[in-house]
């Protein structure tokens, strides 16, 4: 019987076209993901090669002056892109995955980004998570909006009710066929994604798949609930498309507007100005005073003799350091605000399943704002370590040749922050259960009605 019901579904006009369209969009999204990963890999190997040639060239030119050499040398830190980030790029396409810093003041270098195509930024990437979050529900709605209601409208339902001793199971079958078809399509896309993006079969992939399946089920229960209200097919379609629009466009926009208004970041400009002013003013400030400020931060270097010449490197780097120090209050306030935005967004998203699913997928793929913030912190630590190491060398007049430059390869940051696996599924589970329950209650009362 179920194969006949399936035939009836799959032979319907437009269904096959819709499925093929969704499959195509899915495959395209995987290819875009692959392209993205290739670009990331290419960028890393480019940076690695550049760092090596750059080091050799600069060392050859500036072998007498460590301070000058370090003015030019850029050290790179790479934010590892997991293969799964090809499925959910999150912010990786707008935020840099590689930060290259000199040991000069950090704040002015922190936001140096890759070159990106602004048109691309406007549209966003068609990655797999877009297909999943935006397009899957649309096709599910197209498949399910008129379930039961169109049979009521045509009169078939009367015969179904009279024939079937258990009408609820007939309704479940209608849904199972449609949801099953879409889940099969989802499974096919994952099966294609594994070799295409070389996804390792690990817990992250399992959580990603689980979340995707649950997200599709969430929409299935929304359709189930709406169709249980015993409205006409056209009203169902209108309600479902409105819900889609509300959950995917309207509410996320409102949340974004609220979060930005609630946590404004005047500190962004303040940091830039403070860092710039903090450093530039020092050209005209008494050198001794600058050094005192520097020693305040790093008392271990107090033995450095006071600058006698018009220019000396310890003083130059102290200026840079003090620039960072003077911007540090605003900088940490900025990071805190952005962190708060992330926290509040995630809290509100728990009530907006598509937004939650998107954030959670990004979190799993290590491509979200959380990852970006942790990468920035790691960049800070990386910069600090380099700075301390070279201050030591510079202030003790270590010759360039005495340094083993080969050990300064490109460094890699691996985001090990715990990801909430099961807890991340909870909001979706709650809503899925809620709508399934509501739909069940309604259908129990109305299923037999013609």
């Amino acid at each position, binding site marked *: *019987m179920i194969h*006949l*019901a399936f*035939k*009836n579904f799959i*032979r*319907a006009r437009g269904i096959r076209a819709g499925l093929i369209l969704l499959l195509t969009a899915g495959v395209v999204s995987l290819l875009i993901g692959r392209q993205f990963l290739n670009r990331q890999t290419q960028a890393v190997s480019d940076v690695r090669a550049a760092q090596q040639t750059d080091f050799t060239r600069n060392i050859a030119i500036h072998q007498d002056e460590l301070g000058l050499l370090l003015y030019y040398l850029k050290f790179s830190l790479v934010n590892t892109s997991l293969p799964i980030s090809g499925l959910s790029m999150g912010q990786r396409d707008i935020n840099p995955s590689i930060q290259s810093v000199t040991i000069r003041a950090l704040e002015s270098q922190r936001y140096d980004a890759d070159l990106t195509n602004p048109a691309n930024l406007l549209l966003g990437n068609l990655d797999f998570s877009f297909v999943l979050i935006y397009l899957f529900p649309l096709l599910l709605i197209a498949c399910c909006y008129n379930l039961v209601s169109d049979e009521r409208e*045509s*009169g*078939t339902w*009367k*015969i*179904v*009710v*009279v*024939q*079937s*001793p*258990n009408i609820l199971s*007939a309704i479940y079958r209608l849904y199972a066929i449609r949801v099953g078809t879409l889940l099969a399509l989802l499974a096919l896309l994952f099966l294609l994604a594994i070799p295409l993006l070389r996804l390792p079969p690990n817990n992250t992939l399992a959580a990603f798949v689980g979340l995707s399946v649950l997200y599709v089920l969430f929409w299935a229960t929304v359709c189930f609930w709406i169709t249980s209200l015993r409205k006409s097919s056209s009203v169902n379609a209108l309600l479902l498309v409105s819900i889609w629009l509300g959950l995917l466009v309207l509410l996320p926009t409102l949340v974004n507007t609220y979060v930005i208004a609630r946590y404004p970041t005047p500190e962004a400009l303040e940091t830039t100005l403070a860092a710039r002013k903090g450093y530039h003013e020092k050209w005209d400030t008494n050198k001794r005073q600058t050094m005192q400020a520097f020693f305040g931060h790093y008392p271990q270097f107090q033995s450095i003799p006071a600058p006698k010449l018009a220019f000396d490197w310890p003083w130059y780097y102290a200026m840079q350091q003090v620039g960072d120090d003077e911007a540090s209050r605003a900088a940490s306030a900025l990071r805190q605000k952005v962190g708060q935005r992330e926290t509040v967004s995630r809290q509100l998203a728990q009530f907006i399943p598509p937004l939650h699913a998107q954030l959670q997928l990004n979190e799993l793929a290590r491509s979200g704002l959380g990852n970006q913030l942790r990468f920035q912190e790691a960049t800070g630590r990386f910069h600090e370590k380099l700075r301390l190491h070279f201050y030591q060398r510079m202030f003790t007049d270590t010759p360039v040749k005495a340094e083993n430059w080969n050990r300064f390869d490109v460094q890699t940051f691996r985001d090990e922050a715990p990801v909430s696996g099961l807890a991340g599924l909870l909001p979706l589970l709650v809503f899925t259960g809620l709508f399934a329950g509501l739909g069940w209650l309604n259908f129990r009362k109305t299923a*037999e*009605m*013609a």
Partner: protein
Amino acid sequence: MALDALNLTVAPGEIFCLLGQNGAGKTTTINLFLGFLQPTSGQALINGLNVAEHPQETKQFLAYLPETVMLYANLTGLENLDFFASLAGFTLSRDELRSLLSRAGLQAEAHTRRLASYSKGMRQKVGIAIALAKQAKVLLLDEPTSGLDPKASNEFSDLLTQLSADGTAILMATHDIFRSKEVGTHIGIMRAGHLVETLPAADLTANELEAIYLQTV
């Protein structure tokens, strides 16, 4: 109020034909037996069971043929019959399905065509086959011959006579006075929700019945 103080009984082997103008309450009566409507007072019994209290059980005794049979347009006649028969719990072979469709009067070449291409009469025949497949004790028919050509209509009458001979109780709403006289064992005439007359069909000629009908409504 759609129905008032309506009292009718159809025994096994009887064919009760309900006559009456549009809106007299024929379909409402059938819907009460189907359980699609709940009576505000009184009860509908199938095989001694109250429909409102035992909707699942009473439906098992029922087969129903609406005025316009709407089935799944994307399935063939055979597939539709197969689907609706299995809904009722019957697993039939392809030959059994085909013979049911033929018995209902559907030409063999149409069996494997999709329902979208069927005429109203052909759909009606698939509906008849579905009702036959269920081997129901009670047959509820709502203007079943509307849309059937005279020959098909005649074949359908023969089918009903056969079924009633096998002990099926049949309640049929219709506008066809002559057909009801021919096939019915009892004739009921409804007006504004009341069953005004109940007559044994054998005692009347078709012309007498028409005269009574015209006087009554």
